């Protein structure tokens, strides 16, 4: 899961030319969306930087009933995470398009060999007036460590100390690179003020089994974010601008409200009707986008993530490589992606299955010296698929494929019922397979059962919808995820070594490749160097030849913002790629209110 050896800095440095393409997809996406506006971008007002303070209210959805909300993030019942993003500051923020970490509650950080030094912002103030000091950060880290947070992998309570009014030193017990360290604290917010959490910390210090943290459910938060809690009503949570926020000058509207919205339907209706000004992240087809008013703009962000078909490698038939490759040939990924996106561009089919992300801007193939040497399994190549099956001993009897022992090639394909895009994709690819003669049976499963029992539990599956990336762009991560991770070995039972022919020579003699050591080697290499590049290509070849999973498509996240009363930057701006544009951009003045008339 988490790579635990050193990775040099700037691993996620931009080799992605998304910026270039974002201009194209962003604009094309927007232009296409707005019904009658066929002649290019609608006029989107630029942010000048000196918009005056206004009394406006920005409203966005929340999925927690306002009256039920409680503000302890460590207590998962009714914690409103989207509102949490504006009430609390994260320690750092991550720009997905460029791969950089930028300031949040932390103004600066340094990750050395033995220590990581974290420096808080000057002028960081709690909503109750107290200054935020290193003590607060230490408290947060201590509580998290007591609560078994993953940073416990490389530090412990004794090693986290305040070293000044605004500085905290974290003693490192293992080799950790800066990106890894930052990634592990990425979701941490500065949300544990003394007033509310000192007692809890004391209890956790004295009794390690204490459940004080999980039980604590404060009805009002004390945060350091740009907006502070005002009140909750039946349908809305009201937060008002915090004047002492350290970047208060960037925020020019008085209220940020969160309206309770349950379900996609309600969300779309709400933005059409103007009940909300934005939607954080919601998959929407072009048909529905066409029904939005013209002033609603789409903010697309790369997710580096997508649907794949996971095969149970211990299944009698899926354990055979020919079967997997035949399936790959029989499915037309382009059509599947198109259907999944409802005809829109929110999904991009995987061009060449190599386990490398980057199918929206074709940057995936940049890692390959000779992309054509790889098999692209394109289109619906039933002839080739038939060839492969026959070579594995299958015969086609009255329209269905049967193996040497007389067993029909048949399996159940599972998807979670609530994930409409996946269901649409699954229906499509099942059709392709049935046309080819493989008896598939699509089964939609309840979400909890699907994740808890089919994937990560004992029930298992024959073939199921899964994901072929964990969100990072550097190929090490996805290749590890697919070939060597705990998930690969336990969810779909991937073996520890495979026999494949050497790279570029599909007809040569096969050699055994031990996956773990190969991945291990890659970790230590300089990502910019040639050795890493070669290693990546070798592993990509293994992926391409053996198909541990079949990656189908990559998605973008879609957010929507109404520009009737507000102005927002283009989604090509790197700051717009921080989770979520709707909650981050106000902080940095890139989502501002228009002047009132």
């Amino acid at each position: 899961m988490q790579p635990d050896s050193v990775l040099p800095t700037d691993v996620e440095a931009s080799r992605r030319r998304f910026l270039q393409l974002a201009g194209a997809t962003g604009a094309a996406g927007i232009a296409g969306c707005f019904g009658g506006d066929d002649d290019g971008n609608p006029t989107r007002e630029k942010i000048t930087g000196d918009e005056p303070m206004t009394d406006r209210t920005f409203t966005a959805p929340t999925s927690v009933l306002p009256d039920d909300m409680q503000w302890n993030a460590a207590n998962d019942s009714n914690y409103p995470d989207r509102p949490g993003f504006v009430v609390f500051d994260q320690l750092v923020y991550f720009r997905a398009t460029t791969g950089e970490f930028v300031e949040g509650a932390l103004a600066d950080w340094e990750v050395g060999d033995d220590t990581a030094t974290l420096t808080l912002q000057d002028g960081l103030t709690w909503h109750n007036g107290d200054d935020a000091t290193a003590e607060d950060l230490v408290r947060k880290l201590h509580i998290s460590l007591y609560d078994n947070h993953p940073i416990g992998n490389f530090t412990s309570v004794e090693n986290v100390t305040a070293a000044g009014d605004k500085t905290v030193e974290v003693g490192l017990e293992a080799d950790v690179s800066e990106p890894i360290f930052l990634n592990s604290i990425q979701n941490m917010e500065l949300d544990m003020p003394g007033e509310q959490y000192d007692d809890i910390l004391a209890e956790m210090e004295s009794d390690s089994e204490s459940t004080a943290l999980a039980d604590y459910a404060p009805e009002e938060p004390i945060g350091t974010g740009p907006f502070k809690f005002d009140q909750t009503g039946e349908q809305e949570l009201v937060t008002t601008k915090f004047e002492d926020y350290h970047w208060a000058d960037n925020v020019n509207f008085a209220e940020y409200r969160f309206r309770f919205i349950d379900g996609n339907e309600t969300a779309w209706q709400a933005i059409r009707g103007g009940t909300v000004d934005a939607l954080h992240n919601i998959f929407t087809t072009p048909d529905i986008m066409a029904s939005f008013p013209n002033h609603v703009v789409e903010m697309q962000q790369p997710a580096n993530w997508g649907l794949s078909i996971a095969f149970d490698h211990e299944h009698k038939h899926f354990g055979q490589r020919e079967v997997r490759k035949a399936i790959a040939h029989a499915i037309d990924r382009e059509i599947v992606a198109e259907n999944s996106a409802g005809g829109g561009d929110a999904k991009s089919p995987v061009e060449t299955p190599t386990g490398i992300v980057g199918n929206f801007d074709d940057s995936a193939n940049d890692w390959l010296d000779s992309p054509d040497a790889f098999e692209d399994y394109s289109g619906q190549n039933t002839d080739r698929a038939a060839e492969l099956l026959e070579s594995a001993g299958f015969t086609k009897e009255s329209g269905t494929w049967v193996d040497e022992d007389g067993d029909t090639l048949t399996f159940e394909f599972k998807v979670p019922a609530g994930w409409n895009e996946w269901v649409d994709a699954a229906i499509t690819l099942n059709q392709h397979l049935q046309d080819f003669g493989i008896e598939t049976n699509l089964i939609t499963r309840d979400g909890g059962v699907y994740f808890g029992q089919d994937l990560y539990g004992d029930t298992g599956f024959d073939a199921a919808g899964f994901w072929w990336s964990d969100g990072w762009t550097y190929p090490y991560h996805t290749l590890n995820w697919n070939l060597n991770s705990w998930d690969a070995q336990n969810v779909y039972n991937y073996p520890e070594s495979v026999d494949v022919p050497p790279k570029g020579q599909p007809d040569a003699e096969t050699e055994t490749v031990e996956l773990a050591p190969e991945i291990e080697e890659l970790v230590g290499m300089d990502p910019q160097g040639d050795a890493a590049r070669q290693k990546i290509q070798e592993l990509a070849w293994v992926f391409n030849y053996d198909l541990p999973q079949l990656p189908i498509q990559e998605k973008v996240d879609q957010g929507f913002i109404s520009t009737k009363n507000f102005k927002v930057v283009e989604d090509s701006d790197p700051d717009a790629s921080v989770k979520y544009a709707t909650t981050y951009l106000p902080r940095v003045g890139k989502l501002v209110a228009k002047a009132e008339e």
Partner: protein
Amino acid sequence: MQRYYLERTLQAVVTVASVMSLAFFLLRLMPGNPADAYRAELIQNNPQMTQAEIDYRVERKLNVLPDAPLHEQYLNYVTGLLSGDLGESINEGVPVSEIIAEALPWTIFTMSIALLISFAIGISLGAVMAYKEGSYFDSGASVVSILFNSIPNYIIGILLIWFLGYQFELFPTGGRYSTEMEPTVGLLEPIQTLAFLGDALWHAALLILSYAIVASGGWALRMRGNSIQVLGEDYLRVARLRGLSERRIATRYVGRNAVLPLYTALLIAIGFALGGSVILEQVFTYPGVGYYMIEGLEARDYPLMMGVFLVMTIAVVLGVYIADLTYGLIDPRAQTRGGEH
């Protein structure tokens, strides 16, 4: 007679007890446990969350779950019930009784109004249809009644939301009352109370309407059938011969006798209406008990589901109980079932 009351009461208690026990074990037989449901929710709402973070949070949730053997949990639950403790909701982290106490009045509010309206409209319409049997009015009204009775009420709900809620913006499309409104129900503050009630009604209007449109048709048809039957009875001939006005005959004889059999049906319909709120409240995002039932189902929140189930069962049992006992009072012709020979 005493014996009969005792028997019926005992039966009611036994009914509730068996239903609850059945529900207890049924719920836990469902595939997937709260941790699974939680994992699913995390992955769906936070696709970028790392596997480590997800596992960490699921672990944390698991620690809160009871893991005693099933029969032990059952006994604990029953003893808790007897002392009025419905347990704590896994998902919401607050006592179930709190959630239900807050949500139940709203469901009762909407469903009782809906029932009364549909009953009143249905009865009146049915009576008129019966009197004008065979006329165009009768045929037309019959067709309309059947038509509306043929559409699921939540579908009508969706259509109403679409037209009256979003297109014409006449009604709010969710929630029980406006955010700015303070819930006040007090005789000392008549104006605020009225304002609040008005607001609540405005929010509940579409929900009530969906139910009423569909149900009125059903009541109308039944009333029509009963009335037609009564209209053919001999005692009406006698009444006419006696010189009673048509009006009097219509209300005192026909009306009463036709409505009587529906009395039981109405009381039983209360229970069904509560059960039916499960889907309607989802459509209208109206946090009543039906809404929480589904929330509980998705999260496999057993205590919450049990609590809601209990409330609904008690409502139905009460309805049937009252119907049985009071029917004898209302209809002098009826023999109580206890009079067995």
